[in-house]
């Protein structure tokens, strides 16, 4: 166990009940990972793979079914309602769509003031100054304090959402697809702001996205999720230069790219087929068997455990059964 990790997730499971008895949607089905201080940990996967559920469990929006989440050694496996205020302050979240995550009836100033009131106990002019300061951190002018979300652009709204998340001075920020609703030129601005803030405030990020090219540029470590499980995890350079799991290869080979240099980095031998199955009633064996071009008879019977290929590169696939930790 790594005791310097800022966030440790062990065997996290989140099952949602369905109308039928004893039938569950296994959104997250036993995942473990660590986030170390000043890491940008990327969580990649298709819709329905359980990325956002993992984020919501970590922040405490969902109560977890089983497993353990610890923040700097303190157990936070309880929903946010039962967490102490001092721990809630440390983990903040930025949602995907800034159009719906900001209250349209509140001014930007009021939106940013709320975490300052709750976590910093600020009042009056000190509160106002702190809110303007928070706006200044994300390079928004102070007159935005009086504006409403509808008056500003999509990128600026997301900057407000980031300012709100950072107002409480957290140490871990969860970014749930923060730029997937935005244009590329705006995305570039948000990403560079996030980079700067991470450096200045020594933050750690849990960065969720389906955009692998973006991951390549911002993450330090990446976990690939499929059907509620992590299928491959490793440092970003290793995962992109030596992807092992067939699903990782499939994802990489599906990315539309713009230059020949990029094209040469994509694995060639794999063609994407099939779709992610429903997380209700997952058949026995490996979750990826229905789409895997290398499927073997063992894949249909037993679900492979996640194995270490090298020090910090792990993969969950029967193809690497013989591989031992070096």
């Amino acid at each position, binding site marked *: 166990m790594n005791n310097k990790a800022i966030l440790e997730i062990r065997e996290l499971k989140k099952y949602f009940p369905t109308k039928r008895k004893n039938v569950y949607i296994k959104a997250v089905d036993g995942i473990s990972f660590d986030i170390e201080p000043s890491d940008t940990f990327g969580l990649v996967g298709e819709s329905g793979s359980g990325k956002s559920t993992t984020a919501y469990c970590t922040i405490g929006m969902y109560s977890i079914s089983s497993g353990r989440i610890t923040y700097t050694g303190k157990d936070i496996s309880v929903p946010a309602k039962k967490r102490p205020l001092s721990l809630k302050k440390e983990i903040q979240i930025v949602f995907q769509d800034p159009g719906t995550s900001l209250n349209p009836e509140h001014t930007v100033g009021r939106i940013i003031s709320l975490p300052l009131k709750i976590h910093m106990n600020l009042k009056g002019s000190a509160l106002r100054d702190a809110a303007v300061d928070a706006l200044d951190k994300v390079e928004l002018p102070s007159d935005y304090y009086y504006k409403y979300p509808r008056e500003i652009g999509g990128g600026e709204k997301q900057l407000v959402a980031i300012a709100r998340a950072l107002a409480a001075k957290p140490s871990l920020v969860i970014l749930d697809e923060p730029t997937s609703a935005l244009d590329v030129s705006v995305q*570039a601005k948000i990403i*560079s702001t996030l980079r700067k803030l991470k450096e200045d405030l020594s933050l750690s990020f849990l960065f969720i996205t389906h955009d*692998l090219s973006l991951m390549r*540029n911002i993450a330090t470590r990446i976990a690939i999720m499929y059907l509620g499980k992590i299928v491959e995890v490793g440092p970003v350079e290793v995962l992109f230069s030596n992807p092992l799991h067939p699903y990782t290869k499939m994802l990489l080979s599906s990315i539309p790219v*713009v*230059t020949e240099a*990029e094209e040469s980095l994509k694995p060639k031998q794999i063609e994407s087929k099939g779709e992610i199955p429903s997380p209700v009633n997952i058949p026995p064996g490996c979750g990826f068997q229905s789409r895997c071009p290398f499927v073997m008879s063992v894949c249909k019977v037993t679900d492979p455990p996640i194995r270490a290929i090298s020090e910090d590169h792990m993969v969950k696939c029967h193809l690497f059964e013989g591989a031992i930790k070096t």
Partner: protein
Amino acid sequence: MGFAKCSLVERDSMENILEVKDLKVSFKSYDGLLKVLDGVKLQIRKGEKVGLVGETGCGKTTTLKAIMKILARNAIIEDGSILFKDRDIIKSRERELKYLRTKGISMIFQDPTAALNPVYTLGQQLDYILLHSGVDHNRKEAALQALHTARLPDPERMYETYPFQLSGGMRQRACIAMALATNRDLLLADEPTTNLDVTIQDQVLKLLKKLSLERELSLLLITHSLGVAREVTDRIYIMYAGTIIETDSSKTLFENPCHPYTKGLLASLPKLTADKMTEGIPGRIPSYLNPPNGCRFNNRCPYATDRCLKEKPRMFKIDDNHMVACFLFEDGEGQT
């Protein structure tokens, strides 16, 4: 040189299936007139796959709706012409438009969930489309064939399926099946894979590409993703604030972008090569209420001169395929 000349002649003799000339479209609003399209010019040859790329609000969908003549009621077509097989769509009457929409051009929309009728099965919807496209006999067979062509598994069962029983990728395939149920000359696809996951996007794009090759179908693909446009199309038009600013063959455009906007866009794109991303392009798309005079990019352009503030640049030729609307390339040589 001789070879280049020969290919130029051959290209000219190839028939343009669609030609949009100096299209200007405005919208009436309470605040005034929104001058959205400002002289859009594009051509699609028979069997050619063309991409129209730009960011949100640059007029891509407006262009597409103008081609289909399904613009909103407050739209005014100020100027220009849209020639489909040498007939002007703008001047066409309702009866000709019906022919156009049922036999000539078909369309795939961004959100397949909204494009499909939730209370009819795929079979019923396909049947309706085939009926109005003039297929009188064996419509069920034709529908099953269409479902098969769009690579939907088990067409017999799909025929009886309602859209809500399908995943997003399957729904988009169903839309493709409907768009291509009868032979068309031109397919308009408006961000057909934006809502789909990357592996599903890959499958849908490959299907579109394959079908358009097999049927010599012309394709106009609208997308905000430079990568998607490059993978699917032969030629790309880059659009900014209601104007076409650059066009080149898809193979070479991103290796040698010329317009400052195209360059800025490419530089802000995250890449697999992990090249450093820039901070994006400063500023934002101008308001269509009173767009800047001259070049519409002048307020964000690092190279803007006095001339750019007054005069709108026409398209300057870089080579046979490559054209750019920027005064930096006026002498045709290219400088930065």
